[in-house]
């Protein structure tokens, strides 16, 4: 570590913080216990800036920026929870709840669901938007896991963990717009796909879309925290 580290100072929510050059707003905020909600972001995976929940306001620009992919700069002033941002966050969460069939009471992830927790944190009490109630399938062909598309929010964490960490790239996205869905291989059944059965996708899935069959009817917390550790150990090798 002989390279001089360039340090930037900035202000997040009125708090003066320091950061290394190249860090994102989200990283710096979390280091300083400033909470910015996220869904598609996961420590250890590449960022895609897709869920738009981490949008923040940067002084001097009217445009909102996703904190997960926006690098800090010297003198930056960031606001993470203005009224405007909170309104958008609630609307985005509403869109997610109304998009597919999220019924917490019968979900394997009830109580351990990131979507559910975020809704509670953001004070979402009801959904104003019309429910779309799409007709979606469940693929239980895999001997250990199941994908329930009714609960998928298309965060693509499974796609990324499979491609980037496991190196198998079994998961991908098919279709366009509101008809998008995650698929295994070229839309083969999961049980007949080239899946390595590592289970990483299940652990990183923020909702009950991907779950372990052995956990049905019991508590099913997910443990995505292994990723940064795994990456660190691989780098050390």
């Amino acid at each position, binding site marked *: 570590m002989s390279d001089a580290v360039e340090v930037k100072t900035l202000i997040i929510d009125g708090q003066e913080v320091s950061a290394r050059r190249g860090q994102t707003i989200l990283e710096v905020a979390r280091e300083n216990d400033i909470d910015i909600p996220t869904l598609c972001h996961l420590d250890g995976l590449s960022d895609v*800036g*897709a*869920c738009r929940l981490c949008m923040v306001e940067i002084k001097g620009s009217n445009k909102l920026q996703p904190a997960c992919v926006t690098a800090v700069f010297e003198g930056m002033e960031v606001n993470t929870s203005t009224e405007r941002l909170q309104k958008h966050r609630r*609307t985005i969460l509403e*869109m*997610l709840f109304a998009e597919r069939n999220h019924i917490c009471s019968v979900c394997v992830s009830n109580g351990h669901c990131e979507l559910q927790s975020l809704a509670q944190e953001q004070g979402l009490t009801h959904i104003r938007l*019309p429910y779309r109630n799409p007709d979606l399938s469940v693929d239980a062909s895999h001997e250990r896991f199941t994908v329930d598309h009714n609960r998928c929010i*298309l965060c693509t964490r499974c796609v990324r963990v499979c491609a980037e960490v496991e190196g198998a790239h079994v998961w991908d996205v098919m279709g366009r*717009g509101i008809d998008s869905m995650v698929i295994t291989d070229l839309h083969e059944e999961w049980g007949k796909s080239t899946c390595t059965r590592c289970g990483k996708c299940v652990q990183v899935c923020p909702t009950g879309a991907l779950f372990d069959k052995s956990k049905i009817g019991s508590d099913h917390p997910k443990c995505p925290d292994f990723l940064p550790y795994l990456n660190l150990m691989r780098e050390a090798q």
Partner: protein
Amino acid sequence: MTLEELELIARSVKQENAVCDYEINVCMDLACASQGSEQLREALFRAAEASGKKILIRRTGCMGPCSSGPLVRVDPEETLLGRVHANDAEAVVASLGSAPPPALQCDLNEHFDKQVRVVLENSGYIDPEKIDDYISREGYKALLMVLNEMTPNGVVHRITESGLRGRGGGGYPTGLKWSTVAKAGGDVKYVVCNGDEGDPGAFMDRSVMEGDPHRVIEGMAIAAYAIGASKGYIYVRAEYPTAVARLTTALREARRRSLLGNAIGGTTFNFDIEIRLGAGAFVCGEETALLASIEGRRGTPRPRPPYPAVSGLWGKPTLINNVETYANIAPIVRNGGRWFFNMGSERSKGTKVFALTGRITHTGLIEVPLGIKLREIIEGIGGGVPGGHKLKAIQTGGPSGGCIPANMLDLGVSYDALMAAGSIMGSGGMIVMDDTSCMVNVARFFIEFCMTESCGKCIPCRAGTAQMHTLLTRICNGAATMEDLELLEDLCSTVKEASLCGLGQTAPNPVLSTLKYFRNEYLEHILHKRCPAGVCNIQAHAEVMA
């Protein structure tokens, strides 16, 4: 190939053409071709042969007023004939040298008088499949001038000086973009042409690629020299098979004439172009999605920065411009930046091609100096609204744009004025609507387009446009409440501010602009269950509900 050799080719083309006493140019662009211009051309060949006259019959690209097609222009008199069909061929040939058949004459002076043709200067005058035709009209002169007489910086400077702004819709200053890529480090850079035109009602880029493909290639080659690239890609949607065929022929011909490939013009400059076909996704017109698609990945946008100018194709600095932007380059280089700067309005320079469609007498392709009043386009060039109907609105900018009401006809057409009016310049679609159009239904149409064309990556665009479509459908069916309208406006703001790419960020524009200017139509649907234009079938829907 040198400038002298270009001159020689140009002269020999003119000599060859001079052998003929008359030239009959037949428009073979899609609109005319669909009305039988191919059969017309064959009939003209037969009639010419039978008449014994020395006639050159040439296939050309779009001549402009598509609604009067199939179009034929007889030179040297420059007489434009409209609605010419195969059975008129003999009459046309017989009338050469005297007055043309009265039934075929079209009085379009007003249509052409207000137009200034820069991008379309060759369209309708050359055979798009003959490179020598292009060369005879100063084609590739700019490229060889640049290679022999100008430094890359000099070229960038000239483009900057011209004030040209991106013609794809964003209006980003072209010179600034070029200089950013020119300054980016690394020895591998790319030049990309965005020919993924997909706005409903827009066909400017198609007509340029089909009618004058070499102009795009020359513009790209000049750009490549300016920024230091040796490889280019033209991304064309596969739904434009003729454009693809013409570009393929043009690339082959340009290579044959050593205007592409290694050591162009005897200099050390190497450049070649490959065509990439789009698979039919509108979002691939967004630059980062387009680049992903060229790389062979799923065509979804990614957050910027980094901009393509810094990290584009395969992570290399990439210049990406629209077809029409490249089509402006050669004339700017030939005539100088000031020449271009002197056309247009204060902050929007030069000319712009528009596809004029909808409820207007003369539909077709027009090119006007920026700053021109909408009134001159609609009433002058377009010939007004036909059938005694009343003009209601002009939709510009496709699904990213908005509707400008009839009482704003004195608005000057420029990037900033259209933006201030709640619409955008966009790539140049201009759809004229009269009192038979329901603005709620129009908004629903565009939202439906955005919904089906959303890539699905970010939530606001994927789910937001679908929700907006549901609410607009409710309004159209007379089933909506005022709460639904409030919700719709709420969704507009989230989709606009929180979406990842331009598609989502601009998707609410058709709704917002119609809400701004035609709010009463929304209220009529909601409060009085009535569609003022009589388009939405509220009654029928109510019966089904009951």
